[in-house]
């Protein structure tokens, strides 16, 4: 009896020791493999914010995607003191896409709208802001990010980044209305149809569908108009002042790139690393 207990304790002790040291042994033996898989992830994690700070948010400089990447430059200088032009652009956009006009803030649907500086650029100081900044609203729309968080969170791939154009598009057929994308989007660019939108549409565009209750919608950079060789509706609406410049950000000869080279531009929430495709001159 005594002898057996002694034996049992010995075995238990050795087993416990082996069990405790096993993770350490595994870690030691497989360290090269682990290290190699960890390093790029870590590096990317550190690089993203650094890049965003260093390049003042011009994510395009280190864009992961090649090929066409459509973007927009909004020259706010041409829209200061002209809320009528901003409303005109919004009206054109909303008309073309059968966007309902719902007054109620909770239910409203927005593709293109305007908001005060501190709401559009919360990362930029609005302390002692200039008169122009304080008095004017700024045009806001989907940023068609190069790293769109809405696409990452969509469980049905209803929203996706179109590889041919860089547009963050939506397939309303697939949207299940979970609103993850609205949580994911740091710009509030997405609206949810809490109710049937049709009664709130003044007049229908025959070439575009409406949406139904329970889907999310947002700006699509006028993909359907681009296919016909037309400009986005907002660009066309305020053509007279040329406040919107639309084009391929990856093409060094495009008008938008030349304009970006000329002037200092800012983007919305650059530190998030979403790499927006919409630029502002303020």
């Amino acid at each position, binding site marked *: 009896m005594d002898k057996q207990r002694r034996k049992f304790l010995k075995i238990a002790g050795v087993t416990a020791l082996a069990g405790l040291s096993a993770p350490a042994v595994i870690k030691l033996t497989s360290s090269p493999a682990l290290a190699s898989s960890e390093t790029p992830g870590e590096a990317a994690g550190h690089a993203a914010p650094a890049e965003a700070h260093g390049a003042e948010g011009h994510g395009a400089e280190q864009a992961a995607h090649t090929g066409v990447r459509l973007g927009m430059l909004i020259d706010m200088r041409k829209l200061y003191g002209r809320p009528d032009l901003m409303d005109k652009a919004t009206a054109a956009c909303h*008309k073309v896409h*059968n966007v309902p006009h719902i007054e109620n803030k909770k239910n409203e649907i927005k593709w293109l709208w305007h908001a005060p500086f501190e709401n559009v650029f919360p990362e930029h100081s609005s302390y002692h802001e200039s008169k122009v900044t304080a008095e004017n609203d700024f045009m806001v729309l989907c940023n068609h990010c190069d790293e769109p968080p809405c696409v990452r969170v969509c469980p049905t791939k209803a929203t*996706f980044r*179109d590889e*041919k*154009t860089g547009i963050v*598009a939506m*397939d*309303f*057929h697939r949207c299940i209305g979970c609103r993850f994308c609205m949580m994911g989007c740091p710009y509030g660019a997405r609206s949810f149809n809490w109710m049937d939108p*049709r009664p709130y*549409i*003044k*007049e*229908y*565009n*025959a*070439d*575009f*569908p*409406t*949406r*139904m209750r329970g889907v999310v919608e947002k700006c699509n950079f006028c*993909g*359907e108009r681009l*296919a*016909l060789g037309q400009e986005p509706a907002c660009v066309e609406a305020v053509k007279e002042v040329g406040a919107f410049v639309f084009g391929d950000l990856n093409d060094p000869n495009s008008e938008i790139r030349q304009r970006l080279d000329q002037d200092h531009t800012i983007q919305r929430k650059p530190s998030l690393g979403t790499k927006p495709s919409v630029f502002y001159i303020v």
Partner: protein
Amino acid sequence: MYNKRFIIPGLAILVLIVTFPLWFNAFSKASAVPKPELPPGGEKQCVASIPEMRASHMVMLNEWRDAVLRDEDRVAVTVNGKEYRKGLQMACMQCHSNKEKFCDSCHEYASVKPYCWDCHLTPAVLATKKETH
């Protein structure tokens, strides 16, 4: 056989009741094969042959949807020199301008409820708030 006079009529009634759906539909107009209205504009040609459209228009619509939305392939389909833009509203309803007499006639008969019209506009709905420019 005991109770012959109850069993035989009872069996007859049972058979009648069991086969009720068959003979009821045979004599009612529910069994009439629907005749969808041809395009009021008199168009004789579609993007594909009639049997093909009848059997698999839904497949084609899904393919168009995926082409337009997923692959950015919005190039119009050209059949015998006529261009059709890919889209329910942009192609189909241009000729088949009466959804109630064309689409619905078969869909109701077959008891299928496609959700196209939750978002897509029928010519009738479109006419209620027609764009005027």
